[in-house]
């Protein structure tokens, strides 16, 4: 997901603390990586030294060339194996950091109260768990290498100075500029790359809406208009991508040129010194080698610094998520729910609630539902019916007043106990990418979808879902969800009801469970509903009179309060507002076709 990562701040303004904590946690692995990197560095330095010695002492001198060649080969084995080990450690550590962080974010977010999720954007959270973690991983993987690069630079620098201080000066002068250029490059290319990503995201949005809205595009013959929109975006991508190429053209060749200048200097000055007899040819060759050896480490250090800044910024965003405290938590000393006697009494006492500060959805609701009773909540859109359902699940805590289950305030109970005691069938059923059986057993921790197949099938039968499940390609083992088999709205709803049946809660909420269902199929859902409602406290939120009439009593919700309470017939007869609300809710459908 392309999302602007913000501009790069100066080094001093970057908050490094989170990054340092993170690195401290992985210090063992990272230290091993650095040690391996150092060993590799030594091997790397040994190769040109040995080559120089070989040329000077055996080719130009008399010692055995075999011994030198053998020594070079041995150094090759050392660098080869250390390269491998170093890479392995670096990648393993960085991937581990990424993996653990992703788990932390996921686990944290999954436990955050629904109020947080109402405001949070899925795309943003996904990007915390993917793009941001990538940035951190890319930085961590470079740490062992960078530290050994620093060592390499020092090692080579000292070697050069020892070999010939003056020539060392000539060779090394251009190199700090490589580092500076690399850092500047990294900072310049980052916004350019982000711009490309953002243009790509815009193009993607145009494509997405053109395809999602293809019926409109075809219906209005709007192909030309959409093509123009796309071609604008395609041009934009090309434009910003050329801009990025310009940045590369400005910096990368320079980074290649600078060390070449050092090499040219070494050839000239060094050659003269050889001519003067101040150094040997072999030393000159070694000098050449060493200077080339420094190019990549210098470049990568510059980039690592810039990567580090980005990683620190990414980590800051991650911590923003991690530092949100869950608002709905278990009490310190939870009370246990009673398990005997008539169960499922629901009491709301002067409940006041608003989603945002200043807004009021419930303005003092008083309601008492007896064990085993069914109650229909009726009200116009936004009257707070679903809000009551969510308060009963303790998705939110009321601003004032109390919500009680079997006489105990929800806040005094363990959160999981509340949610096992109160079951809900949502307006839209979300099926998980798993088998039918696992989806039905979703809310029943003690039921194993495979071993307890009978119990699952029984629940499905009660919910009127048994027949169509049997006819699915793999029956109860058919995989559902976004990437699996897709079911119709009515079928999904029946799976959800089966889920609630199997969980066997003492209070069941049917939140607009029939609204997504084709009216001609509604009666099937209704009969499933009446089976599960039997002997259970049930709250039905509905628009259609047929569904409302199933409940023992009806509560009319208006302007945040219970405006009337009685049977469907009583309210129809005496309450004008009730009739109005029903009339608005009835779509007077003659058959729904989609």
């Amino acid at each position, binding site marked *: *997901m392309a999302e602007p990562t913000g501009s790069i701040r100066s080094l001093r303004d970057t908050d490094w603390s989170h990054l340092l904590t993170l690195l401290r946690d992985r210090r063992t692995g990272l230290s091993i990586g650095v040690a391996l990197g150092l060993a590799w560095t030594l091997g790397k330095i040994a190769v040109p030294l040995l080559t120089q010695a*070989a040329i000077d002492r055996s080719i130009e001198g008399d010692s055995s060339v*075999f011994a030198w*060649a*053998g020594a070079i080969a041995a150094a*090759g084995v050392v*660098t080869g194996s250390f*390269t491998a080990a170093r890479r*392995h450690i670096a990648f*393993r550590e960085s991937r581990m950091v990424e993996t653990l962080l992703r788990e932390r974010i*996921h*686990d944290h977010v*999954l*436990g955050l109260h629904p109020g947080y*999720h109402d405001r949070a954007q899925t795309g943003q959270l996904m990007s915390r*768990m993917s793009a941001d973690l990538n940035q951190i991983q890319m930085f961590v993987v470079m740490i062992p290498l960078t530290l050994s690069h620093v060592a390499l630079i020092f090692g080579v620098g000292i070697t050069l100075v020892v070999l010939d201080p003056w020539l060392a000066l000539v060779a090394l002068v251009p190199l700090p500029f490589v580092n500076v250029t690399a850092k500047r490059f990294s900072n310049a290319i980052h916004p350019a790359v982000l711009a490309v990503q953002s243009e790509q995201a815009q193009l*993607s949005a145009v*494509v997405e809406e*053109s*395809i999602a*809205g293809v*019926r*409109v*595009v075809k*219906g*209005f013959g709007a*192909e030309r208009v959409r093509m123009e929109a*796309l071609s604008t975006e395609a041009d934009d991508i090309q434009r910003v*991508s050329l801009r990025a190429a310009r940045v590369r*053209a400005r910096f*990368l*060749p320079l980074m290649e*040129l600078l060390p*070449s200048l050092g*090499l040219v200097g070494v*050839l000239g000055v060094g*050659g*003269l010194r050889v*001519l003067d007899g101040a150094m040997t040819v072999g030393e*000159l060759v070694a000098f050449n*080698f060493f200077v080339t050896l420094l190019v990549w480490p210098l470049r990568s250090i510059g980039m690592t610094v810039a990567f580090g800044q980005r990683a620190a910024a990414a980590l800051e965003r991650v911590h923003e998520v991690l530092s949100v405290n869950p608002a709905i938590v278990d009490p310190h000393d939870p009370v246990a729910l009673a398990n005997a006697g008539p169960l499922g009494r629901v009491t709301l006492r002067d409940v006041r609630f608003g989603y945002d500060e200043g807004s009021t959805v419930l303005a003092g609701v008083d309601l008492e539902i007896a064990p085993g009773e069914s109650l229909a909540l009726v009200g116009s859109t936004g009257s707070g019916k679903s809000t009551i359902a969510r308060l009963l699940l303790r*998705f939110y805590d009321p601003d004032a007043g109390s919500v009680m289950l079997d006489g105990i305030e929800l806040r005094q109970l363990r959160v999981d106990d509340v949610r096992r005691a*109160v079951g*809900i069938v949502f307006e839209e059923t979300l099926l998980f*990418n798993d088998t039918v059986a696992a989806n039905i057993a*979703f*809310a029943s921790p003690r039921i194993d979808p495979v071993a307890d197949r009978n119990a699952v099938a029984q629940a499905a039968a009660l919910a009127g879902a048994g027949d169509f499940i049997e006819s699915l390609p793999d029956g109860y083992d058919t995989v559902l969800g976004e990437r699996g088999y897709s079911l119709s709205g009515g079928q999904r709803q029946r799976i959800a009801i089966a889920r609630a049946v199997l969980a066997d809660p003492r209070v069941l909420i049917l939140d607009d469970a029939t609204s997504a269902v084709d*009216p*001609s199929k509604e009666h099937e859902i209704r009969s499933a509903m009446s089976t599960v409602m039997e002997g259970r406290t049930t709250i039905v939120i509905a628009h259609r*009179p*047929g569904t409302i009439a199933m409940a023992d009593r009806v509560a009319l919700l208006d302007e945040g309060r219970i405006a009337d309470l009685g049977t469907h017939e009583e309210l*129809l007869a005496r309450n004008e507002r009730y009739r*109005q609300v*029903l009339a608005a809710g009835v*779509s*007077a*459908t003659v*058959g*729904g*076709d989609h």
Partner: protein
Amino acid sequence: MWGGAGVDPDDRLDRSEAAQVLRRAAGMARGQRRAAAAAVGFVAMATATALLGPLFVRHGIDSGIRVGDRSALMLAVVGYGGVAAVGFVGSRRQYIYVNRAGEGFLRELRLRLFAHIQRQSLGFFDRNKTGVLVSRMTADIESMSELVQWGLLQFVSAGILISVALVVLMVLSWQLTLVALAVLPIVVLASIRFQRSSNDAYLEVRERVGQNLSTIQEHLAGVRVIQASARTDEQRRRFKVSNRGLFDAHLRTVRVSTWYFGVVELAGVLATALAVLAGGYLVDRQSVSVGTVVAVVLLLASLFEPVQQLSQLYNTLQSATASLRKMFDILDTEPEVDEHHGSVDLGRSGEVVVDSVNFAYPGTESAALSDASLRIASGERIALVGPTGAGKSTLAKLIARLYDPDAGSIAIGGTDLRDARLASLRRRVVVVPQEGFLFNGTIADNLRLARPEASDEELAAALDRIGVRRHFSDLPDGLDTEVRERGSRLSAGERQLVSLARAALVDPTVLVLDEATSNLDPGTEAEVEMALERLMEGRTVVVVAHRLSTVRRADRVVVCDGGRLVEVGTHAELVAIPGGRYAALSAAWEASRPVAHPFSTGG
């Protein structure tokens, strides 16, 4: 966007398929020939100069330092410096031209692919999921972007480096070169193994990343269900399994490449050792100079790095080829509804004649419409009713030629739709879908969907015609209000109003309406009703009806059932048929009405 990253068998191609795909892509890139030629030229320039460096070093050592000739040394220094400068210039230009060629090709590909997708008829969109099509236009093209940006540059420069280095090495001393290259078989074998195993490992990572992301997405989307089911800990455990699976897949790719990099690095040093060994022997026999040995050692270093680069490039090339083939599959799909030569413009008449039409949706067996015949007079209002799957929406879509009938014909104003120019068809027949679908942009942009050239006055007139001008001019930014993604800035009712005004701007002869099943907010509901009524005036209207009020306002009602048009007539006629379908439907509706309906709109 996150879901479809799984590996499918299409991601693996054999060699001949790959070659074919690449040839075709090269053919498409013909427009970028000049930029590409310039790019190759500059890459060659930058690369060749990098190779010349060691030659000057050799010259400096052999003709300058060893014989004591200062001017020869200085010449070598100046030459080296000059070559570096030329390389610098070439290197700067190469980035620009590689980008021009590559991005130019991608732009071309984007436009062509999108144009082709848009030409497809609805059946194509039924068969292909939105996510998949979007990823063809985005992820797949972006995966090629890596190839055309870096891959091309690396491929050309590595190729030149390797071949030129080899030639120079052979010229310098073929004996030394052959000895040093004794390590080549190791590198080649390692590279082949690396390509195979890294491709598999890389594909697995891609699949796991996709799975992991869709688990995250599922958990975020379902967080309320998960919490309501007290399943948080269980889902955390499941995520951990998936997340660790991804970690393991990452480790496998690391293992594969780690091993390979070690071997290549070792081979490079071994080659140096061999060159030194042979050099010692040959210098002793006076057949090569010390300068030559030095140059060979330096050049060997520049030989092994590009080999590594090429191996890594192979993965990029593979995934790009796979992406290209998927795009070509789309480009090879011919649209089912198309225009033939000699198509004519539709006339002004709004008479619709459906004649013995049979139709089944592509890929399905059962007929959605069988032997449907219907004559709709110009200016007549027809309501289509019936249960789900009865064929009413299908008939509406056929009248708008979103599909072609399998048998029989549909004509408007006496012209068979298959003979009509598509542009004129879309001006004469407009489909207004259930929900007002808006595109990102302003309200005015959305109104101009079918007629981008329409003036502001024409927009105002169209809004006036359906009586909603005030509604939109009262917004702070008027018609320039940005509607945001899917029109989320507007209410459902307002979106519907824009959708109706959009149709009014086209001013079609035939209007096909798919009535909304869900309710709007009571405020705008009435306004939408009124605008719709005004829009329908004076046009032939075919409406897929869900409300009795709409049905009652129609001139005639057509009852669909099982793909057949079972009853046709006015409301009064059909209710009078004893045991008739419509009579039953109508009665069922009456029964589900609440008693004493105060807002009865029927009649």
